[in-house]
């Protein structure tokens, strides 16, 4: 097998314990070259811990990691050169300017002189930060800081870029800018691991998704695969009126493939009879349609189905 066909990232049995607490249980994952892969999970799921182990920042308690065919544990320097990390925090010196920050982080990867200057220019270009590069970072907006945070991970042109919740706390404009940065990098062949607790981001950006919860990967695949496997489009009809009529109407609907929940909620899935005929049947029985709601097959609902919880507490 030629080297370039090795997966961008391969994890086997990867886990981390902090004392008695298991932050990450035992993860197996393959991220293909040039793929954008999302780690999706709620707070405390273990995304940052997984990413930190991938980047060589945290030593795993068990398991092993391969970056582009190089085992991180046995040849950390060769592996680390291939990885770019964009931490969850704004990992920058706020008192220094963007240029001073990038010069320093570039030097950590052995870049210097004209090459360093060129890479700094290119990285700033990619994230769309061209102005105010000589001003202190603390004077930047949240979105600008986020973009600079990404630029600092790009200087050494990593083959694998790891972004840990890169859009937390940014305005829509900066978020779009970050999205197009990620897409451009993927189109240029960079393997991307992207952690987030926003479904929309995983759906919009990533080829495949691993859903994490409580230190485990509970499902993985493409977005359509996950949605198809764990959720379905449904229409929910709430029945009202004379109880005998409601009972009669629901019996008829269930005979046609619908399911009854809570005595008055009819769930009508793709395999049920057509919506029109169900509603016609209800009216024939003398029952009343109180409310109709549609329940879409989304990643959000797949997560709900998998964990029994919403991904975030806020709406």
């Amino acid at each position, binding site marked *: 097998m030629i080297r370039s066909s090795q997966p961008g990232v391969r994890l086997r049995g990867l886990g981390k314990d902090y004392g008695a607490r298991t932050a990450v249980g035992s993860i197996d994952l393959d991220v293909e070259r040039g793929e954008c892969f999302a780690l999706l999970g709620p707070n405390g799921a273990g995304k940052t811990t997984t990413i930190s182990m991938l980047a060589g*920042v945290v030593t795993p308690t068990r398991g092993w990691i391969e970056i582009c065919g190089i085992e991180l544990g046995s040849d950390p320097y060769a592996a680390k050169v291939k990885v770019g990390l964009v931490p969850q*925090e*704004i*990992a920058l010196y706020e008192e*220094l300017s963007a240029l001073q920050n990038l010069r320093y982080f570039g*030097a*950590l990867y052995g870049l210097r002189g004209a090459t360093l200057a060129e890479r700094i220019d290119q990285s700033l270009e990619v994230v769309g930060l061209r102005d105010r590069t000589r001003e202190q970072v603390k004077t930047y907006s949240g979105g600008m800081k986020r973009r600079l945070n990404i630029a600092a991970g790009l200087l050494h042109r990593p083959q694998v870029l790891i972004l840990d919740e890169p859009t937390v706390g940014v305005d829509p404009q900066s978020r779009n800018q970050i999205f197009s940065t990620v897409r451009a990098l993927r189109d240029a062949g960079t393997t991307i691991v992207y952690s987030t607790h926003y479904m929309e981001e995983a759906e919009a950006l990533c080829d495949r998704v691993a859903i994490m919860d409580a230190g485990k990967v509970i499902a993985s695949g493409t977005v359509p695969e996950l949605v198809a496997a764990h959720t379905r489009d449904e229409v929910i009809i709430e029945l009202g009126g004379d109880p005998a009529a409601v009972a009669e109407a629901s019996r008829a609907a269930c005979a046609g493939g619908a399911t009854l929940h809570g005595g008055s909620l009819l769930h009508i899935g793709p395999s049920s009879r057509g919506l029109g005929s169900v509603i016609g049947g209800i009216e024939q029985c003398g029952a009343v349609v109180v409310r109709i709601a549609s329940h879409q097959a989304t990643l959000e609902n797949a997560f709900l189905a998998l964990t029994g919880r919403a991904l975030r507490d806020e709406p």
Partner: protein
Amino acid sequence: MIRAVIAKDVGLLLRDRGALLSLFALPLVFILVFGSIFQEGPDRNEARPVAIWFAAGDARGAAIAGALAAAPGFAARTAGSPEEVRQLVATDAVAAGLVIDPDRDAAIELVIDLAAPLQARGPLEGALTAVVLRALVPAALRIEARSPPGRGPPRAQASAFQIAVPANAVLFGFFLALTVATSLGSERRTGVWRRLLAAPVLRGRVLVASLVPYFLIGIVQLGFLFGTGVLVFGMEVAGSVSALVAVSLALVYCAVSLGLLFASIGGSERQLGAFGSVVLLVMGILGGCMVPRALMPAEMQAIGLAVPHGWALDGYYDVLVRTGTGIAEVVPAVGALVGFGTVFAMFGVAWFRFEE
């Protein structure tokens, strides 16, 4: 990489008013205040005026007047009459007066305020007695003070700045430890530390590289304080400059190592700041940065050598005050500072957590 780290840390320091203040401005203010207070205090270096009267042609009086004029700490002022001597002392125009009776067998009158505190009157009375005796007794009865071997004599009496400059240089030089610890703490807080660990650089090198800039900053700090001492306050360096440099380098090494130790104990920057300043102040007080150890009781003097500050100050005192102090004479001070520093560094490295 080292150059990039230095550029980064110097850039950060130049923007950190608090650190600049505590490393450069504050010690300078302390030096100025303490140096001036003691320069103008009771044992200032200026010659103290002493009035003298003796009858014309009195050989005994002339001999004493000659000895008084030659004595370094006194400025003789010849009065026209015994009464004038007493008046000059009474009005504080002079510190004391001598009235020499023309009768060779009569006692010599020392005019001095007997109600003045013993600490002020005693040395003056003693010194004037010695001047008189030197003029009158045969050589065999004279006593001359000499420094023992290895303890070079001063060129002149130690000046207040020869005490105040090193005391504050040591006290605030060690505050560098706090700057080191809080800068490592803030790198952890901001997540920059993660970036450093993600870079293809040995972890130990990352740590050493983050300390190097502070070594340079410490050297600049001490250079600034001693330079100002010499150029602005006229502080004398009686010993060799190379010995001064040796003690200073050892001091900075010790301070940076202590910073690593602080950082390895962990805690937030705020906790570190509070805990670290208390520890550094206590060390400074014990070591004699506030009150010279020579003025402390014997047990306290011994305790002062349990902290690096005490050794550093002993070294600086020898270099600044004693003539003939070279590298060999400051070996104990340098050795102790390097020893303390190495112990701090060993525990610092052992306890330092690269990962949280």
